[in-house]
């Protein structure tokens, strides 16, 4: 009890020099540590985005796999930006999907700018052009990550083949 009272009455504290040194050291080291925390957060975000990108890409490929062979892609997929380009006798179909930062689908026409773009390019497979299409899928983030050099980092690329005929189906 007496010791408690003496502790409360004790007017000894830290000197100004001690405080200045302590704050200086803390702020200098704090800067480095905060960078580590921000970098960790960026890595975590990248990992989560990569998992989402894989999920979105496989979802799209599996959706394409279930379509009937001569399906009308524009009507079936209901994506906002679907462009079909015909190169000679072959048709190359591009499917684009847009997502916001929480991986919710975004309409291109809306004011909200998308953070992720999924691009799938379909073209007839050279080995079985009548019945098979090759899919080249890319998931890109429109903004760069903290401490990353890439302006538009590619999160995931996928090459697949789907039993879908896109030959001669262009606009």
């Amino acid at each position, binding site marked *: 009890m007496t010791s408690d009272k003496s502790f409360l009455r004790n007017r*000894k504290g*830290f000197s100004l020099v*001690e*405080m200045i*040194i*302590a704050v200086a*050291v*803390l702020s200098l*080291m*704090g800067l480095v*540590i905060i960078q*580590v*925390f921000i*970098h*960790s*957060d*960026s*890595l*975590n975000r*990248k*990992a*989560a985005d*990569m*998992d989402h*990108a*894989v999920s979105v*890409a*496989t979802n799209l*490929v599996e959706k394409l796999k279930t379509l009937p062979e001569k399906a009308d892609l524009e009507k079936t997929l209901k994506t906002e930006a679907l462009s079909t380009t015909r190169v000679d006798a072959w048709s190359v179909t591009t499917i684009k999907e847009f997502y916001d930062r929480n991986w919710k689908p975004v309409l291109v026409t809306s004011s909200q700018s998308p953070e992720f773009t999924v691009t799938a390019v379909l073209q007839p*497979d050279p*080995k*079985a052009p009548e*019945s*098979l299409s*090759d899919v080249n899928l890319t998931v890109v983030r429109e903004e760069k990550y903290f401490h990353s050099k890439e302006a538009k980092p590619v999160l*995931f*690329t*996928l*090459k*697949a*083949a*789907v*039993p879908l005929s896109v030959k001669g189906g262009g606009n």
Partner: protein
Amino acid sequence: MRRNVLSNQKGSASVIVILVMLMLVVFGVLAFVSAGSSLRLAQKNAAMTQEYYKLDAMAEQATAQASETLKSSERSDFKRLESTLGKITGVAAVHVTRSDNGQPLIEMRIQDSKTGADKSLNVILSPAASGSGVVIHEWKLVVKPFTYEQQIGL
């Protein structure tokens, strides 16, 4: 002398700073290591998905070519069918047997020569009853048991 050292409060601010710093550094390192592990796991998942779809694409091509081959007269000559299907790119092994209804039952092992023999896709198919196309009985990814190697690199 000893009492003097213990009761002397000079430098106690530095001790507190060191303790706080130590705590922040430990939490920072833990967060960084955990984030790095998450990213590595995500990269492995992505690589595995890419490998699967590469094998899947090869299997789709092999199935399309097998379907074309089955339309020809070769379907009754199992040995010839086996040799024709064995020439398809990506087909590592083919085994043709007779099913209960007398139709050929084709078992193919699809393997990517670049990625090695640790992953393969087993496909079992037979000609469709209608005459065109095939019926797929099995489409299974087979991964050989592997030993885990610790790799550090973020």
